[in-house]
C-alpha cells in the first residue's frame, strides 16, 4: 500500500486497482481497510479532506522513511539470496 501511495494520493478503490496492476493481487475490502487503519495509526499514511465515500490517502514523511527502510532491507536480503543461490 505504501508503494501504491508513493506516487501520489489515492482512495481505496484506486489503491486496490494499482496494487492489482503492479503486484498481481487484489485486496478485498476487509483486508484493505484493516491495512489502512494500521498504517494510519502508525502515522505512515493520512487521510485527506474529501468525499467520505472516496476519501484519498497520502503517504507521510514517516511512511516514506519506513518504506525506504523496508526496501533497503529487502534489497539486502535479496542480494544475499542471489549470491547464495548463484553459488549452488
Amino acid at each position, binding site marked *: 500500500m505504501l508503494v501504491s501511495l508513493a506516487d501520489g494520493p489515492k*482512495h*481505496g*478503490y484506486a489503491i*486496490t486497482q494499482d496494487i492489482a496492476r503492479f503486484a498481481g493481487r487484489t485486496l*478485498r*475490502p*476487509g*483486508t*484493505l*481497510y*484493516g491495512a*489502512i*487503519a*494500521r498504517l*494510519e*495509526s*502508525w*502515522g*505512515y499514511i493520512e487521510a485527506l479532506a474529501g468525499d*467520505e*465515500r*472516496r*476519501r484519498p490517502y497520502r503517504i*507521510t514523511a*514517516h511512511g516514506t522513511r*519506513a518504506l525506504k527502510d523496508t526496501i533497503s532491507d529487502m534489497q539486502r536480503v535479496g542480494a544475499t539470496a542471489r549470491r547464495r543461490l548463484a553459488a549452488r
Partner: protein
Amino acid sequence: MKHLLRLYPRRWRDRYGAEIGALVARQRLSVKGLLDLLKGAADAHLHPALAAQHVFVPTIGFRPAGTRTLLERAETSADDTHLTILALAATPERTELLVEWERASDPAVCVSPTESDAAPSIEMGAPPKRAPSIAPPESQLSATLSVGSRVLESTSVMRHSVLYSSAGSWSVHSMDFPALPAGARRAALRVSDGGRHWTVPFRLVPARLTATPVTAQSTKDDITVKVTDLAHHDDQLVVGMEVSAGQPVGRIGEPAPAMPILPSGRKFKVARGAGLAPIVLEDDRGARREEIRRVFALRDQPDAHIDGERFVQRFSVLFDMPSAEARSATVIVPFVELKDQRPSAVADLRQLPVDLELGEHRMRLLSADAYPGSDHRHMKLVIEESATAPRFIHPAAVQGAPGGSYSWGGSPERGEPFWMEAAVGDPPLVTFRGVVLRHDGPWRLEFPLSLPN
C-alpha cells in the same frame, strides 16, 4: 451489506464505513469477499484503537493514534539525585518526555533572580512566580535518547516547575527529541549535568487511552472555541479543546490555581477565592462540574501554532466523570483573553507617577521600587477600566534593559494590585508593549457523551 457493516465497532463504522460501502458497491462481493469482511470485523473488534484518530497521554495531552508511551514507571537514583520519567509520548513526528528531578540540598549554590526568572511557566498565561533565592536542581543540562546503536540529541530541554525546601529541590523538565524508530520497544534516556550523568532505560507500548472525536464549536467576537476529543482516565473526563482567533490567545477562563505537574506522591492545597472563572461542564441531568485541572502544551508545537492567519491554542481540561445516565454535556468557557501586540508606550522611571496610553487603553504607573543589589524594578500599575468591550486587563509585556526578562502578577479583580517586574538599564526607561484584552463569553459547546469502551 449494511448488516455486514454493523458487525464492525461503531467507531470503525463512523470512520471507514462509507468508504468500505462504496468499495463493495464497485466490486462484486464474492464468498471470499464476504469472509474477508467478517475477518476484518473480528480484527476491528480485537484492535479498537486502530480506528481512533487520537489517544490521550496523561500529563501530556491528546496525540495522534499510533503514539507510544511508557510501559511502566522508569527511574534511577545516583549522586543524591532521583530522576523519574513522568510521561512520554512518542509520536511519528517527535518524542516528548517529562522528567522529574529530586535532588538533595546544596546550599553553596545560588543564582540571581534574572537567571531563575528565565524559567517559563507551564501554565499558559499564568504569571511567572517570583524568583527563588536558591539554585535550581540542575545547571548545564543536556540529554540524549539511545535506541540500539542510534543516539538522538534533544531538540529542546525546558524547565517548567521548580520547588525548594531545606531538604532539597524538585523540578520538572520537558525534553523534546526527534521521532523514535517505528519499531523501537526499548530506549534509554541519558541526562548529563556538567560532569555527572544519569541513564534511565524505559520500555514503550502503544498508548491505549483512545479518544472519541467530537465536533462541537462556538464562535463569538471572531474567537472560535472547539471541543475536539473526549477520553476517560482515572474516573475523570478529559475534554480536548481548541481556541483560535486572529490574535495570540492568552488565558481561557481562570481555573483555581494548581500546580501544573505534581511531584510524585506530594499534595498541594488548591487555593479557591473570588475572581475565579473556571471552565464548567454541565450534563443533561443537571449536574455542574468545574474543571479540576488542565493539561497544556509543553512546548509551542504542536498545541499552539499559527494556522494561516489564525492563532490556535490546544489544551485538555479534566472534569470529574459525569454520571453514567448522562447522555450529553455542555462545556462553558467564561472568557478568552487575546493579545494585541501593536500598541506601545515608554515610561521614564525617574518621573513617577505617570499616566500612559497603550492605543485607546489607559493606565497609571505608580512606582518602580528597586531591589538591593539587582537591576530589577518592581512596578505597581493601576489599570483604567475600559468603557467598552473587550476589557483592557494589563500590558502584554514590558522591556527595560535590552534582552532582559520580565514577569507580572496581581489581580485587581481579587483586590490585589497589578505589578510588573523587569531588568532596567541606565537611563531607567521601560517600554510597555501590547495589551491583553478580555472577551467575555460564554462560549457553550454541547456534545454527546459517548466514550470508548
